[in-house]
């Protein structure tokens, strides 16, 4: 009995000593030699391309920082976990990152479906988060001092596309087909409200479908009967690919446009030759896999040398590579500015001071006290006859 009592006392004293040491530490996740940065993202499952892109990009950025000696002498200790795009998994790994790994900040994050459920925890625990995957409006609703976003949110993307359809393509009878989740319904609302307010037009047709559907003939036949001259497909790329093909097969001749999620090579892989002329928006200034912008060429070279010497997997590098890398760059700039004495609050203040920051791979990023949306620019891209995307125009702050 006596031995057990002694043992307990010993454990308690060791624990108190550890706690005291932790309290003395300047800030959670920061030591003299390292800064811990955490990521939860889909590394497996249907949307793993997004997470793998972001993870590789941040890993590459961290390696670059560490190779040149870190930030104010502190190296980046990057920890990433797979959430398989599941909200439940996301909850679990976020707790692990914050409580167990005690990260200083979070980076990139997951798809909207498993980022929104954890935003409350992030805000409550006051962990800075630089997001580079979710484009959902509700990431910023209500406004959180600790959450920042790298690229144009989905409303900005939808507004850009509506502007392009109505003003540049002179569409008279616009129609929309959208997926029945938050993303699609949000896109539909922006589309119809903007048409009504700015262009005094009501959609010729508005049809919805359920995610995972593989046949859209009922919706497309209704759309065909309404005889639109422009159709906005607010869907994920895989479904949009089938919709584009079925629209052509059913004899729909309207010009086809897509929401932000369609701007990936997956669209053409699903749609085939029917995709020619399809127009979409991109949240980065150029196409990650083919761009000749110096920053993007350099990124591709570095990524290849560091992680993929035998060639990139299909679909890579993607815009999520670029956004993830940009998230790293912005983080680096803010940490440099904070100086040796790092705290989460000072880091957030530094991020809010970022103005027209050029990451080399995204649009310039600016944050402010009231706006944590890094960019309001979108690139309009279109599918060429050889089925490759090409940049057509740039739309700013619609």
């Amino acid at each position, binding site marked *: 009995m006596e031995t057990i009592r002694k043992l307990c006392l010993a454990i308690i004293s060791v624990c108190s000593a550890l706690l005291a040491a932790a309290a003395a530490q300047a800030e959670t996740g920061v030591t003299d030699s390292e800064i811990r940065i955490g990521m939860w993202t889909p590394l*497996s*499952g*249907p*949307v*793993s*391309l997004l997470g793998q892109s972001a993870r590789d990009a941040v890993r590459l950025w961290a390696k670059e920082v560490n190779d040149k000696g870190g930030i104010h002498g502190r190296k980046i200790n990057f920890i990433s976990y797979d959430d398989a795009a599941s909200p439940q998994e996301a909850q679990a790994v976020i707790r692990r990152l914050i409580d167990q790994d005690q990260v200083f900040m979070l980076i990139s994050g997951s798809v909207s479906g498993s980022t929104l459920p954890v935003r409350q925890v992030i805000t409550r625990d006051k962990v800075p988060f630089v997001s580079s995957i979710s484009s959902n409006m509700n990431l910023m609703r209500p406004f959180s001092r600790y959450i920042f976003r790298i690229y144009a949110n989905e409303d900005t993307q939808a507004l850009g596309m509506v502007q392009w359809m109505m003003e540049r393509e002179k569409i008279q009878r616009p129609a929309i087909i959208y997926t*029945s989740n938050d993303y699609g319904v949000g896109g539909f609302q922006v589309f119809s409200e903007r048409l009504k307010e700015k262009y005094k037009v009501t959609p010729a047709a508005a*049809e*919805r*479908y*359920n995610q*995972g559907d*593989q*046949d859209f*003939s*009922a*919706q497309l*036949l*209704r759309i065909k*009967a309404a005889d639109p001259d422009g159709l906005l497909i607010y869907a994920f*790329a*895989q479904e949009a*690919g*089938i919709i584009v*093909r079925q629209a*052509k*097969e*059913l*004899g729909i001749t309207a010009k086809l446009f897509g929401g932000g999620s369609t701007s990936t090579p*997956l669209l053409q*892989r*699903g*749609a*085939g030759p*029917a995709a020619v002329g399809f127009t979409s928006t991109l949240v980065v200034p150029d196409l990650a896999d083919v761009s000749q912008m110096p920053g993007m060429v350099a990124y591709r070279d570095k990524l290849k040398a560091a992680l993929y010497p035998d060639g990139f*997997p*299909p*679909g890579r590098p993607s815009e999520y590579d670029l956004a993830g890398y940009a998230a790293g760059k912005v983080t680096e700039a803010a940490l440099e500015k904070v100086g040796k004495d790092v705290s989460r609050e000072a880091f957030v203040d530094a991020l809010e001071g970022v103005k027209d920051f050029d990451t080399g791979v995204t649009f310039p990023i600016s944050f402010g006290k009231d706006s944590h949306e890094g960019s309001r620019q979108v690139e309009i891209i279109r599918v060429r006859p050889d089925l490759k995307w090409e940049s057509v125009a740039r739309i700013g702050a619609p």
Partner: protein
Amino acid sequence: MELLTQVVVSGLTLGSLYALVGLGFVVIFRATKVVNFAQGEMMMLGAILALYFYTDLVLPYWLSFILAVTVCALFGAALERLAYRPLINAPVVTLILATVAVGQMMRAGVRILRGSEVSRFPSILPAEPFSIAGVTVTPLSLSIIALAVLLVCAFMLFFRKTTIGKGMEATSENRDAATLCGVDVHRTFSLIWAAGSALAAAAGVLLAPLIIITPDMGTIGIKGFIGAILGGFTSIPGAIAGCFLLGVIENLGGVYVASSMKDVISFLMLVLVLTIKPNGLFVGEQGQRA
């Protein structure tokens, strides 16, 4: 009127997709009483294999088709030997769960090997639409309808006219009696799983140009299952008719009621049919086989 005809024709195309998948469900169920929930995944595997043979190894289409179907048939027989035969005396529900597990494993396996790659199977027939009496069709969709009908006829003949087919029928009627009559039950089961898997693979290869190839493309299988129940799960022609009917109903509901209600309508229809005529629309009161 033109719209109505177009809706029905598109519904039939959709129905032919369901029918091809539904047929595989029925073939295995008739013989083993097992609903094979890995059917959709086998279909996906068939499509992926054919794509590999056709585009990566640049084999002729017919050879790619045959190879994909053969590999899947062998795989189906192997699954029967490794995963299902050990459970032969377990309750049917255990076997059904085993098929769910196998399906999940196949999906995950494909995802590990190919990632979430999206591929389109190049169509060997033109997908350019043309009009007959105001109805837009493509040679591709017409050929799918024709092939579905052809496959159904072929399988019905197989069950009725060949010794192996009769053996399968006998095994499904009464396993013990079939054994006494000299039917090798184990061999028959292997054959049935191989046939069901071959059918799924064929469906996958035919469907592939109409949809897209992803690890999740097998989810369309569930519609084939519903269509088969609608028509009658124990009867091949009944199940096929049910699948075509489901395609048409989905489209009619989607166009004339609301496109978002498409699935609701078909599921409501299923509930109604199960309540009023539990054996399926096209099967007699006793659940006779066709």
